[in-house]
C-alpha cells in the first residue's frame, strides 16, 4: 500500500529497520572494550622490538635486554634512579659479595630459597652453568664477545651450595657493572642447552627463552613476519621477593607500534597506558602541554659522535680533525633538531658518570677562528676550501640522522673554509661502507653495555669502527684505569685520556640523550636513569 507521497509502507519499515540495526551496531561499536579478563594490568606501547633472541648468551640489543631484565635475574642490579656509581649496586640473586685484596677474586653469597619455575632450587651450580654456557658458546655477535668477557673472567668456581667465586684475569674495577648487565643473566638449564642457543619458537613463549628468576614470566611472545607484535608478562609467583609486593602490577602487555606517530595516537586515544621508545622530540613537546598525559624525563646514556677515516687525507692529520671538531655547533643540533631534548657533550664519558670532563670545550663550539687557523696550516682557505663528504644513515638506527647532518653541514660551512657534501646509506650499506673504510667523516652512536666509563673510553680507538686510529699510550692508560678500583686514580687516568683525545681528535663527541616516556596521568613508578633500564616491576596505575 502506498502512502500519499508514493513511498510504500514496506519501504518505510525497511528503512526504519536499517536505521535501528545501524544504530544498534553503532552503539555497540562505541562501547569501550570489554573489561579485560586480566585485572591489574598496564599496557606499554613501543616502537622497539627484540632483534633476535631472549637468550642472554646471544641477545645484544636494547629491547632484548629489557625483556630479559623483567623475566630473568642477575647476581646484582643497579639501584633504580641512581647514577650507577660504585656504591649503587644492590643485591638480586646474590645477597652480598666480597673482593680479594688483589682484586682478582670476587665471591658472591647467593640468596637461598629461590626457585625456578619447576620448583628446582637455585644455587651456585646454576651460576657456573650460566657463565660456562654463555662463554662456551662464544657467539661472535653475542654480548660475551662484544663486552670481551674473555679478557676479564678466567673461571667460575662453585665454593659451596650458595657461594660462587669468579676468578678474574685482570683486576677489573667495573666488574659489578658487568655482573648487572643482562649478558650475565642466570638461565634455567632445563631450557638452556649447554651447546645451543635458544631461539624464538612460534606459539610457545616458554620454549623461546631460558630465563626464569625474574619478577615476571613471559606468557606470550607474538611475532608476525619476523617482527614483534606483542609480549605478555605475568607476575612470577616464584620470584624471591613476591611476598614484598613485587612486581607492583601483576600483568604487563607490551604492544608494538609501527612508528612514533602511531604510538603517540595510541597513547592519546587511551589504547596504551605508557609510551616509551620512541617518541619524537616534537611529540614530547606537544604532549608536555596536555593535561591528560604525563611526560617523564630522565638522564640518558646514549651518545652520538662523529668519526674520521684516517686513511683518507687530510683526516690523517689531527689538525684537520680538530678543525672540524672546533666548527661543530652542538647547541644548534640539540635545540634545532632535538628541541632541547639532547645535551651537548664534550667528552666521550657521559655526564653523570664518574670520569666525565668537559675536555672538548677546549676546542669550543662553532669556533671558526680556530677552524680557519688550523685549516690554513694545511693550505685551506676561502678560495681553496676543504671538501668534506659527511655520511649519515637513513634507516632510523640513529635518531633524526638526516636532520642532524644538515645542521652539521651548516655549522661546518659557516666557517667559510669548508664545503660539505652530504651522503647517506641505509644501515646495511652504512656498515659495509664503514668496514670498507670509504666514508671520510661519518656519524655514529653508542649505548653502553654496562654503566662505567670503561664501556665508553675504548670508543676512541676500537677497531670495529674502522677509523684506523691507534694510540698505544692511550690504550695503556685505559688498561691501567680498568685495573684499578681507586675512583680518584681512575678519574685522573680518564682525564689524561681525554686530554690526548682532544689533541688527536679521533672522534668528536656531539650530544648525550635524555630518556623520555609518556603515560596516562594515573600511572606512576616510571624511573628513567642513566642505565636506561625500563623497570616494569615498578609501574603502577592508580584509580
Amino acid at each position, binding site marked *: 500500500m502506498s502512502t500519499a507521497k508514493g513511498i510504500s509502507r514496506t519501504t518505510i519499515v525497511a528503512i526504519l529497520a536499517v536505521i535501528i540495526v545501524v544504530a544498534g551496531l553503532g552503539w555497540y561499536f562505541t562501547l569501550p572494550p570489554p573489561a579485560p579478563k586480566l585485572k591489574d594490568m598496564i599496557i606499554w606501547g613501543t616502537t622497539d622490538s627484540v632483534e633476535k633472541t631472549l637468550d642472554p648468551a646471544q641477545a645484544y640489543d636494547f629491547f632484548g635486554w629489557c625483556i630479559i631484565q623483567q623475566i630473568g635475574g642477575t647476581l646484582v642490579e643497579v639501584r633504580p634512579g641512581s647514577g650507577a656509581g660504585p656504591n649503587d649496586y644492590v643485591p638480586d640473586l646474590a645477597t652480598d659479595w666480597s673482593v680479594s685484596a688483589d682484586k682478582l677474586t670476587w665471591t658472591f653469597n647467593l640468596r637461598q630459597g629461590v626457585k625456578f619455575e619447576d620448583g628446582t632450587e637455585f644455587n651456585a651450580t646454576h651460576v657456573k652453568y650460566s657463565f660456562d654456557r654463555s662463554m662456551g658458546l662464544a657467539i661472535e655477535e653475542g654480548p660475551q664477545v662484544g663486552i670481551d668477557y674473555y679478557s676479564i673472567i678466567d673461571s667460575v668456581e662453585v665454593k659451596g651450595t650458595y657461594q660462587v667465586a669468579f676468578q678474574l684475569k685482570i683486576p677489573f674495577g667495573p666488574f659489578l657493572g658487568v655482573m648487572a648487565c643482562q649478558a650475565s643473566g642466570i638461565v634455567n638449564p632445563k631450557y638452556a642447552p649447554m651447546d645451543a642457543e635458544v631461539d624464538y619458537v612460534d606459539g610457545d613463549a616458554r620454549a623461546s627463552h631460558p630465563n626464569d628468576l625474574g619478577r615476571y614470566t613471559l606468557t606470550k611472545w607474538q611475532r608476525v613476519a619476523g617482527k614483534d607484535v606483542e609480549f605478555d608478562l605475568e607476575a612470577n609467583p616464584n620470584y624471591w621477593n613476591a611476598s614484598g609486593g613485587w612486581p607492583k602490577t601483576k600483568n604487563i602487555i607490551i604492544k608494538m607500534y609501527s612508528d612514533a606517530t602511531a604510538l603517540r595516537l595510541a597513547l592519546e*586515544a587511551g589504547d596504551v597506558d605508557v609510551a616509551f621508545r620512541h617518541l619524537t622530540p616534537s611529540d614530547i613537546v606537544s604532549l608536555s602541554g596536555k593535561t591528560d598525559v604525563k611526560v617523564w624525563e630522565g638522564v640518558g646514556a646514549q651518545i652520538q659522535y662523529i668519526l674520521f677515516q684516517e686513511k683518507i687525507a687530510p683526516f690523517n692529520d689531527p689538525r684537520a680533525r680538530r678543525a672540524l671538531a672546533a666548527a661543530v655547533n652542538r647547541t644548534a643540533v640539540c635545540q634545532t633538531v632535538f628541541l632541547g631534548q639532547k645535551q651537548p657533550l664534550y667528552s666521550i664519558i657521559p655526564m653523570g658518570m664518574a670520569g666525565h670532563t668537559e675536555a672538548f670545550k677546549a676546542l669550543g663550539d662553532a669556533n671558526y677562528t680556530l677552524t680557519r687557523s688550523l685549516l690554513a696550516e694545511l693550505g685551506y682557505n676561502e678560495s681553496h676550501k676543504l671538501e668534506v663528504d659527511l655520511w649519515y644513515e637513513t634507516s632510523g638506527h640513529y635518531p633524526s640522522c638526516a636532520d642532524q647532518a644538515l645542521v652539521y653541514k651548516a655549522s661546518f660551512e659557516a666557517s667559510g673554509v669548508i664545503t660539505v657534501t652530504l651522503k647517506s646509506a641505509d644501515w646495511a650499506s652504512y656498515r659495509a661502507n664503514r668496514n670498507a673504510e670509504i666514508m671520510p667523516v661519518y656519524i655514529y652512536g653508542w649505548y653502553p653495555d654496562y654503566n662505567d666509563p670503561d664501556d665508553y673510553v675504548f670508543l676512541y680507538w676500537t677497531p*670495529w669502527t674502522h677509523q684506523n686510529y691507534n694510540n698505544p699510550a692511550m690504550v695503556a692508560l685505559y688498561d691501567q684505569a680498568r685495573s684499578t678500583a681507586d675512583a680518584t686514580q681512575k678519574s685522573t687516568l680518564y682525564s689524561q685520556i681525554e686530554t690526548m683525545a682532544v689533541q688527536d681528535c679521533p672522534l668528536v663527541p656531539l650530544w648525550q640523550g635524555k630518556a623520555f616516556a609518556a603515560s596516562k596521568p594515573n600511572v606512576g613508578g616510571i624511573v628513567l636513569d642513566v642505565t636506561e633500564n625500563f623497570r616494569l616491576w615498578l609501574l603502577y596505575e592508580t584509580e
Partner: protein
Amino acid sequence: MGLRSYIATRVLLTIPMIMLLLTFVFLIIRVLPGDPVLLHFEKAASPETMALMRQRLGLDKPLLDQYFAYLAGLLHGDLGKSMQDFSPIAQQIFSAFPATLELAIYSMIIAVGLGVFLGVRSSKSYNSVQDHSIRVFGIVMYAIPIFFLGMIFQLIFGVVLHWFPTGGRIYPGMEPSGLTIGGVHISTGLYTIDSLLEGNIIKFLQALRYLFLPSLTLGLVLCGVFIRLTRTNMLETLHLDFVTAAKARGLKERTVLYGYAFRNAFLPVLTMMGLQFAALLGGAILTETTFSWPGLGRYLVDRINFRDYTAIQGDVVFFGLLVALISLVVDILYAYFDPRIRL
C-alpha cells in the same frame, strides 16, 4: 578451449612467469650494496667467523649453485630460511598473510560496494548536482594521501571520540582460537572468521572494531577508482540501443540499470577489482604502518633493509603466485559474466 584446458594452460604459463621474476629478483638483490653476513656482526668478527656465517647462509657457493639450490627448495615447497634470524620464510609470510588478507577483503567490500553504488548513481543522474558531487568525492578520495586520511580518522574516532582503537588487530587476550572438532583444529587466521568459528560474537565484534578504521581508510581511497570506472562504463552502456529498447519495453528503471546496463558495464570493474585485490595482498604498506596492522605491508621493505635475500625471493615468489591465481579467477569470472567471451 574448455575450462579445464584453459586452467591447465594458465597454470603451466605461471611457471615461466615465476621463473623469470625470481631470476630477475635473485640477481638484482645481489647487486645491492651491503652484505647480509656483515649485518650479523655489529663489531668486528674474525675472518673465520665471517666465513662460517657465509657458509651457514649459503653464500659461499657460486651464484649459479645458489640459484639452483633455491629452485630445488622451491620444488619441494621450501621457501628457505631467513638470513636474519634463520626462521622459515613460509612461517614468516603465513604468519602475516591472514592479517593482510582480512584487511584486503574488508577494504575491497567497502571500495567496491561504495564505489559501484556511487558510480551507478552518478551515471544515472548525469550532469546533475549529485553527479558532480560524487565525481568530486571520487577525485578527492583518490588524491588524498592514505596515511593522512588514516591519521584524520585516528584523531577523530580514536583520540577525540574514543570510539575505535587507533592501531593493532585485536584487544590483548581476545585473539579468537577458531574451532576444534574431534581433535582437528580449524583456524583461518582471519579474526572475524575464527571468532565466528569459535562461536564468540564478542570477539567477532571486537575484531570488526579494530578492522573498521584501517579498512574504511583503504576502502575510501580505493573507491575513488571504482566510482570513476563504474560511472564511465555506465554512461557508455546507458546510451546503447539495447538499454533504450529495454526502457521502451516498460521495464522498471532499477531493472534496466542493474539488470541490463550494469551487468554489461561491470567487466572492466571486475578487472580492476582483480588488479586492486592482488595489489592489496602484497600488503598495503601505508595503511598497515599507519594502523600498526601486523600484515605483509612492511615485510618486503624490512627484508630489503636486512639484505635478507631468501626472504625477498620468497616474498616475490609468493606474491607472483597470488597474482597469477587472482588473474586466473578474474578471467574465469569474465567468461561467466559475459557468455560471448570464450576461454
